[in-house]
């Protein structure tokens, strides 16, 4: 990664330019980005998806949304909102349920909304895919339809966590529960590319999530991965603990397997939700506190809004040949709009070519050190 090495000593936090990365430039400036959105994915679909899509096109000039789902459902919801004709609709009649085995369901249901959306991306009719339905279904649809980037053994779900010290990239948040040291190395490379593009960090520091700060901590997977990561041309800072993720400041990219990653991500989500609710209940306990809460409310809203998934959109499926953003199943319209926004930005930032280049450049080197 010579382009990055050359700027190793540069200020870590500055916006990366295309010339730094030396990768395929994005589309022409001002070009419209078309985002295919899975109409039936998510607990609050289809209403929340339609509302989020309308929010997105209202707020994001240059972004076009294509709803993928039953045409009559989409048209009825758009008409009820006085938005007939504002969004393009592409027909798809099947849905992959949260309780279905994703790979088999996507394989069987060729007309599933998420699969048709992926097909639009593959065929060039859309630039990105957004789903707030089953992560496994989105993963399977992306893999089967778009294929994987060279060097990507298994895609990872990468989320940007708003840590106290600043945002960081965390992956895998749950796409692939079984990992190998080699996969964790791939995640590191893809995560570095994402941190460069999304966070503007020239040389992101990579940390390996484990159970202690000292080297050698953790199970066999973590110990082998640490050796591999140290051999890669990334700024590997060693082990990070779970508490380092919400606090931040130790690493810009935190890598782990999808099982552990999902446990931590859901744990953080639950903790934030619990603290917020407890805080609100405490404020509401007495008249005096309610009065005080009026004063404190802006500060509380600032913190909780900062941590809300509504604000930063969903996770990226890294390693597939296309921009795929997966949101929370309980996504609100605001969260859906955020997912659409980050997907469109990723297209403009040429995220997938950058990741493809990072993986391809390092494929041979990685192969020599992988067990």
């Amino acid at each position: 990664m010579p382009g990055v090495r050359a700027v190793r000593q540069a200020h870590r936090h500055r916006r990366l330019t295309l010339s730094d990365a030396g990768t395929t430039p994005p589309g022409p400036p001002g070009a419209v980005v078309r985002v295919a959105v899975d109409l039936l994915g998510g607990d609050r679909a289809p209403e929340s998806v339609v509302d989020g899509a309308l929010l997105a096109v209202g707020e994001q000039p240059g972004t076009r949304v294509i709803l993928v789902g039953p045409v009559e459902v989409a048209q009825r919801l758009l008409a009820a909102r006085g938005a007939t004709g504002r969004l393009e609709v592409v027909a798809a009649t099947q849905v992959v349920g949260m309780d279905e085995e994703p790979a088999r369901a996507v394989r069987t249901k060729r007309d599933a909304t998420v699969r048709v959306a992926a097909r639009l991306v593959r065929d060039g009719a859309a630039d990105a895919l957004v789903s707030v339905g089953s992560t496994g279904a989105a993963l399977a649809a992306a893999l089967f339809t778009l294929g994987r980037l060279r060097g990507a053994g298994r895609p990872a779900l990468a989320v940007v966590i708003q840590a106290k010290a600043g945002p960081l990239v965390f992956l895998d948040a749950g796409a692939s529960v079984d990992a190998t040291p080699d996969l964790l190395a791939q995640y590191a490379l893809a995560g570095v590319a994402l941190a460069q593009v999304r966070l503007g960090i020239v040389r992101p520091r990579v940390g390996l999530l484990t159970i202690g700060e000292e080297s050698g901590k953790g199970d066999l997977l973590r110990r082998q991965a640490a050796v591999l990561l140290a051999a890669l041309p990334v700024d590997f800072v060693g082990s990070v603990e779970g508490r380092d993720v919400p606090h931040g400041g130790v690493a810009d990219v935190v890598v782990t397997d999808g099982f552990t990653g999902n446990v931590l991500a859901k744990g953080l989500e639950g903790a934030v939700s619990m603290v917020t609710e407890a805080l609100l209940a405490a404020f509401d306990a007495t008249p005096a506190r309610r009065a005080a809460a009026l004063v404190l409310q802006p500060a509380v809203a600032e913190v909780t809004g900062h941590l809300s998934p509504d604000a930063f959109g969903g996770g990226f499926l890294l390693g597939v040949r296309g921009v795929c953003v997966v949101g929370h199943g309980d996504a609100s319209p605001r969260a859906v709009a955020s997912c659409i926004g980050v997907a469109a930005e990723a297209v403009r930032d040429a995220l997938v070519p950058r990741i493809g280049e990072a993986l391809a450049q390092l494929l041979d080197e990685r192969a020599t050190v992988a067990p």
Partner: protein
Amino acid sequence: MTAAQVLAIVQQACATVLEIDPQTVTLQTRFVEDLRADSLALVEIVEIVEEALAPLAPAGFHIDDEDLDGLTTVGEAVDLAVAQL
């Protein structure tokens, strides 16, 4: 279409999904033990093979999921596909 031609398609699908040399894939190669293909990779391979064979196969050509469950070797996959062509 001959079994050898189907084998070539399966070899290429394995190479694409698993990033291996297609020539290392033979009729005797086992998906799990030799290629370390997990269930998702196996479905990916089948999807690629189906897509490649679709223009040459009767309408509705599809490898059933039930058949996938018992699939062990590349040779079995080739036989399964050839039987439906």
